[in-house]
C-alpha cells in the first residue's frame, strides 16, 4: 500500500484522537481531562471529513467540541471537586475490567479483521449537506420530528431538574 496523503492524515488524526482518550484516562485534574477530550473530538471531526461527511464534521465540532465540552466545564465549575481524582476501584476489579475489555476488543477485532468489503465509488461528497437535507426532510421526517420533541423534553427536563428547589430550601 502506497503512502497517500489521505493515509497520513488518517494516521495523524487517529493518533491525536487516541492520545486524547489516553490522556482522559491518565490525567489527574478534571479540567485537564475535559480539555484532552476536546482534541479527540476535533480529530474525530477530521476523520469525518476524510469519510466525505462534511456536514457531520461541522456538527461534530459545533456540538461536541463546542457545546458539550462547555456544558461539561460549567458542570465541573459548579460542583466542588477534589483536586486529584484517582480511581478508587480495587486492583482486582480493574484487572478484570481490563481483561474483559481486552477480550472484547480482541473479539471485535477478529470480526473486523475478517471484514473485506470492496470499495465502491460514491457521491457522498457532492453537495453533502443537500443530500442530508433531502433525506432528513423526506425519508426521515418523522424521526426528525420525534427528535425535536426529544430535545424539547430534554430541555424542559434539564431545566426542571437543575432548577433550585425553592420550597425545599425554605423548609430546611
Amino acid at each position, binding site marked *: 500500500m502506497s503512502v497517500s496523503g489521505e493515509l497520513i492524515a488518517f494516521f495523524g488524526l487517529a493518533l491525536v484522537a487516541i492520545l486524547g482518550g489516553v490522556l482522559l484516562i491518565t490525567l489527574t485534574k478534571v479540567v485537564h481531562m475535559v480539555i484532552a477530550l476536546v482534541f479527540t473530538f476535533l480529530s474525530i471531526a477530521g476523520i469525518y471529513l476524510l469519510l466525505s461527511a462534511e456536514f457531520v464534521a461541522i456538527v461534530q465540532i459545533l456540538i461536541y467540541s463546542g457545546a458539550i465540552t462547555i456544558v461539561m466545564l460549567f458542570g465541573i465549575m459548579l460542583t466542588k471537586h477534589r483536586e486529584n481524582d484517582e480511581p478508587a*476501584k480495587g486492583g482486582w*476489579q480493574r484487572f*478484570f*475490567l481490563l481483561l*474483559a*475489555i481486552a*477480550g*472484547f476488543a*480482541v*473479539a*471485535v477485532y*477478529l*470480526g473486523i479483521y475478517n471484514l473485506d468489503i470492496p470499495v465502491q465509488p460514491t457521491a457522498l461528497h457532492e453537495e453533502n449537506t443537500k443530500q442530508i437535507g433531502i433525506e432528513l426532510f423526506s425519508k426521515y421526517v418523522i424521526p426528525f420530528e420525534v427528535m425535536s420533541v426529544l430535545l424539547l423534553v430534554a430541555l424542559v427536563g434539564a431545566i426542571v431538574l437543575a432548577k433550585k428547589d425553592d420550597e425545599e430550601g425554605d423548609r430546611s
Partner: protein
Amino acid sequence: MMENAWLIPIFPLVAFLVLLLVGGRLRERGAYIGIIFTLASFMLSLLTLMERFSAPTYKKTLEWLTLGGTQLTAGFEINQLNALMLVIVSLVSLLVQIYSLGYMKGEGRFSTFYAYLGFFTFAMLGLVMAPNLVQLYFFWELVGVGSFLLIGFYFYKQEAKAAAKKAFIMTRIGDVGLLIGIILLFWETGSFEYGEIFQAVQSGVISDGSLTLIAILIFVGAVGKSGQFPLHTWLPDAMEGPTPVSALIHAATMVAAGVYLVATMFPLFLASEAAMQAVAITGGFTAIFAASIASVQKDVKRVLAYSTISQLGFMMLALGTAGYVAGVFHLMTHAFFKALLFLAAGSVIHAIHTQDIERMGGLWARLKWTGPLFLVGTLAISGFPLLSGFFSKDEILMAAWTNGNYFLFILAVITSFLTAFYMFRLFFMIFAGESRRQAKQVKESPAIMLLPMLVLGVLAVISGYIQTPWFGTFLGEWLVEGNETVLGAAHSEGPAWVMILAVSVALAGILLAYMKYARTKLPREGLVKENSTLYRVLENKYYMDEIYYFTIVQMIKGISLFLSYMERFIIGGLISTVTGSIEGMGKIGSKLQSGQVQQYGMIAFLGLAVLLVIFALTGGYLR
C-alpha cells in the same frame, strides 16, 4: 313367597331407619316398631322355609356394577341352607328383641338400641341371602359394624369402647383375608357367583396351590368372624355389650356367619385337602383351647363366650372333616341353646346385678323359671342324652371318626368332657350352694323376659329331633338334596360306642363339676391349684391379649412413632434445608446489590465479554 323373600332383610332395615329418624320421640315405644318389623321378617322367613321344602332353589339377580366387560350382580338366593339360616336368625332376633323389652327397661336410649338391633338383623339376613361373594362380603362387613355398634352401646364405658374397637378390628383382619380370597377367586374363575365358582372348581381349572391358598384365605375370614384361634380374643371382650346383644350376636348369628361361610363355600374347601385339614385342625384346637380357658373364668358371660368359641370350633371341626350336615346341624342347635344360655344368664344378671359367679350361688330357689331354663341349656350344650346338643355333637363325633382323623376325634371327646364340666361348674356356682347375697332382693325376671327363654328352651330340647340316628335324618337329607356328591352323606354312620363314649364323657364332666362345686366333696382347688402356673395361664387366657399387645400392637405403634419422627425430622429437615438454602441464596444476592452503578455495569460488561469471547472462539451458532 320366595319371590318376595327380598323383603325379609328389608323389614329390619325399615325399622332401623324409622327408629333412627323418629326414635328420639318414641322412646320406649320404639321397641314395638323393631319387634313388629322383625316379626314380619320372621313370618316371611318361616313361610319361605316351608315353601323351600317343596320348591327348588330360587335365585334372582339384578345388575349392580359394571366393570368393563364384567357385570356384577346383586340379588338373593333361597337354597336349603339359606332358608334355614333365615329362620334361625330372624327367630333369635325376634326373641332377643322381645327379651330386651324387659332387660333394657329404664335405658334412656331405648330406640337407639332397637335401631342397632334392626340394623344388625338386616345385615345378617342380607348376608345369609347373598347369592354371590361380593354381596356376601358386603353384608359380612355390615354385620361387623352392627356388632360394633351394639357392643359399644354403652359408649361411655371405657371397656365397652375398647371392646367394640377390638371386635371391629380383629374381625376386619379376617375380612381382609376373605377379601383377598374373593378377589383371587374372581381372577381364577371369572365370577363371583357361587354356582359358576363351584363349576370352575369341579372342572379343575384352578391349580391345586392357588385353590388351597384361596380356600385358606376365605377361611381366615371365617376365623375372624367366628372367633377361632388366633383371632378369637375379641369375642370374650365383646361381652361388654348388653347381654341380649351377646345372645343375638355371639351365640346365634354373627359368630355363626363364619361357619355359614365355610358351609356355603364347602365345595371349594372339599377340593383342597390341605384347606380341609386347616379348617379341621383350627376348629379342633380352638375347641379345646377355649374350653380349657372357660373352665377357670369367673365372669358368667365370659364363660359363655369361651364356650361359644369352643362350640364354633366344634362346628369348624365338623366341616373340616367333611361333616357338612353335622356342622350345619350343630350351628342350628347351638344357636338355640346358646341364645337360651345367654338370655338366662342375662336374667340372672338382671336379678342380682353382678356377673361374677363367685358372688352368686343358691339362686335355684329364688329364680324359679330362670334356673330350670338355664339347666336345660346347660344340659343341651353338655350333650346330655335326648337334648338337641346331644344329637348334633354326636353327629360331629361321628363325622370326625368316619373321616378317620382319630387325633381330632380324641380332641373332640376331651372337649366334650370339658364342656360338660365347665358348663356345670357355671350352673352349680350360680344356682347351687349358699346364697351369697341378701336373697330377698333377688327377684325373678318379668314374663316378657321369660317368654323368649321359654321358647328357646323348648327349641333347645326338641330341635335335635330333626336329625337323629333313630328317628330319621330329615335335616341332613334335605340339606344335601341335589348335591349329594358334593356335600357328602346326610348322616355319618359310625360305631355305636362313639355315642356311648360321648354320653359317658359328658356325664363324667357333669359329675366332676357336681362333686367340686355343688357338693364340694372335692376341694374346689383339687384339679388345678388357684395359684399354680397352669391356673394363672388359663385365667389369663394363655396371655393371648398380652402377646398381641406386646408384639403386634407395640410393633405397629413403634413403627408409627418412628415414622412420625422421621416425618418431623428427616422430611421436615429436608424441607427446611431447601427453604433455608433458597433463603440464603436470596440473602447473598441482595448483598450484591451494592447500589454502585459502575459495579453493575462492570459485571454486565464482564458477562458480555465472556459471551463474546466464547462466541469468537467457538465460531458461534452460525458456523
